[in-house]
């Protein structure tokens, strides 16, 4: 028993970092596996199909999704800048960065909504329609979660809840947003370009 007396009461042999970081990374990893499965299902159906959706309809839509892609991928920059800013204790730039990201994400969702309502095909009409709406829908749902995450973080930032030392939620929101962006790269590539 004498060995116990001198030890600190704090556990955590594996490092000083907040365990939440590990939790967030592991959670995002599992989310990535979900999208891997959905994309694999799409590729499986596509390359075992005898008939696929006529390719000549899609290029009409490429302008909007391409612009949307640029907006979404660029939105990773302000959220990263926001994280860097709060690490240096700059709350003003944190707020600007989060707000910019939120606006860009909202524009992306608006573009997706336009595309959904103006698509020349339906989820029920063909397997392509099923996969298109399901994959973009799953991604859109994750963008909405990311936007909620950003909004909550923004409100907390406006209330002055973050400091240079204490701002893990900002980083987690940023990670989640980067993840949503990265998934879109694969979706855009496989749904629109392939």
């Amino acid at each position, binding site marked *: 028993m004498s060995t116990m007396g001198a030890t600190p009461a704090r556990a955590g*042999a594996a490092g000083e970092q907040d365990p939440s970081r590990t939790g967030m990374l592991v959670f995002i990893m*599992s989310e990535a596996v979900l999208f891997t499965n959905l994309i694999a299902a799409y590729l499986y159906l596509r390359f075992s199909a005898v008939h696929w959706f006529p390719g000549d309809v899609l290029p009409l839509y490429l302008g909007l999704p391409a612009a949307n892609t640029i907006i979404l991928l660029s939105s990773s920059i302000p959220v990263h800048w926001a994280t860097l800013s709060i690490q240096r204790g700059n709350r003003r730039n944190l707020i600007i960065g989060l707000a910019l990201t939120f606006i860009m994400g909202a524009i992306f969702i608006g573009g997706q909504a336009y595309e959904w309502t103006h698509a020349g095909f339906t*989820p*029920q009409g063909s397997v392509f329609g099923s996969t298109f709406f*399901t994959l973009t829908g799953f991604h859109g749902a994750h963008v909405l979660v990311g936007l909620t995450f950003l909004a909550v973080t923004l409100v907390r930032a406006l209330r002055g809840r973050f400091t240079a030392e204490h701002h893990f939620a900002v980083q987690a929101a940023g990670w989640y947003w980067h993840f949503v962006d990265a998934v879109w790269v694969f979706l855009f590539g496989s749904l629109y370009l392939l």
Partner: protein
Amino acid sequence: MSSRSEAAPAEPWGSEGLLSWLTTTDHKRIGILYIVTSFAFFLVGVTEASLMRWQLAQPQNAVLGPEQYNQMFTMHGTTMIFLFLMPMLTGLGNYVVPLMLGARDMAFPRLNGFGYWLFLLSGLFLYSSFLFSAAPDGGWFAYVPMTDRAYSPGRNIDFWVLGVQLLGVSSIAASVNFVVTILRLRAPGMTMNRMPMFAWTVLVTAFLILFAFPSLTAAASLLMLDRFLGTLFYSAPAGGDPLLWQHLFWAFGHPEVYILILPAMGIISEIVPVFSGKPLFGYIFVAWSSVAIAFLGFIVWAHHMFATGLPAAVQAFFALTSMIIAVPTAVKIFNWIATMWGGRIRLQPPMMFAIGFIALFIFGGMTGISVAVVPFDWQVTDTYYVVGHFHYVLFGGAVFGMFGGLHYWFPKMTGRLLSERLGHVQFWLLFIGFNLTFMPLHLLGLMGMPRRIFTYLPNLGWDIPNLVSALGVPFIVLSVLVFLYNVSVSLRRGALAGNDPWNAVTLEWLASSPPAPYNFAEIPTVRGRRPLYDLKHPDRPDAAPRA
């Protein structure tokens, strides 16, 4: 040891009443909630199985009609896998792992509570289907096109497809928590290399869940969309593919088998050394064989699909990977046997269940290798041979492991010992009943009896094995009743356990029985793989392994 250990045990429930249980974030209470709830679902699953064996005891029996029979086997499988074994092992992990690691709680206590309540609500949701006479009836793997709206127009499959997705969320929440707890909250000095084997298997299992459940979520969401919105993923006439369901489902379903068995193997790896009075033989091999099993578990799924006409090269690949899994599994079995070799073996109930596990799991593993052989699988696929095989690994394996764990940790959870005499009675009833019920199924399968038929004609040679199988059921039921009686009596009148009734070596036995809400007044420093042994024998501690 600590002076607190000799005092009367604290009230295991505390005195704060029902509300404190509904709102608890204590890993020990959440663990007990998981264990009690999943045991209740176990009793339901046993009831469903008993009705099925009764129905099949004689040819052309009329205990259950065909629709009811379909609901029974679907809910039996779904219950035993999602509502009993997984949450039971989550519950044991919840209770024991933070204590083993020298932690005060799980990393995310509120997420832990969320996982439990979502599990309970998902289970109740699934069972509420009976109120609408619409219990799921598509089998636990719910193959399309049978489960499409066209062939299953009722609400039955809707309940299933929503229920398993909710359970997936619950499992992911619990797994994130386990991973972070085990990677981040270990006591000072407890390197990965010194971690108890149960913690190792819970860690590997959590990663398996994080990687495997998304496949189930994907499969079930696509089926849900097909059923609710009329998408065409699984619709062959429209260019979809029913085989996509099988690929996605088994990409989850096969790792799921290891999700169920690995924690049980972890329990066995704790019990065998303690009751042999020796350190675990081949620690590194036992730990890393779990990792190997988990990895291989992701590249064997199509061995469930040999009868679907996959290309020959694909079949050969999946047959080989499936056989290779036998290697890390055998590594574990030989290490357990080597741990027992020359040890001072105490045949107390936890050890009886551990030895039962090893014997039955070897048998189930051997039949598993036999169905990895493609031509043999063609012969027995979808027959009772397969049912016999997986009950040997999941009942003979996981359930025996679970009972071993419950006997082993009951004194820690309650402060009281279970009756050993009743424990032995329970073990032998279960061992005899199990073999009576499930051994004849192999013969039935070889004689061509398909699974999932609600009745059969006489004079096919199936009458006697089915009758023998049914006769085993009362033994199993009686065994479960003996356990419940043992628990209820011991909770009130069992002998006081003290901190360390088994002369064990891991840190949960350093805490009082039951442990205080904060687990340890002071977090111990760990110097080897058997931290409690080191504290008990300061003069001759285990040599610290090189990290």
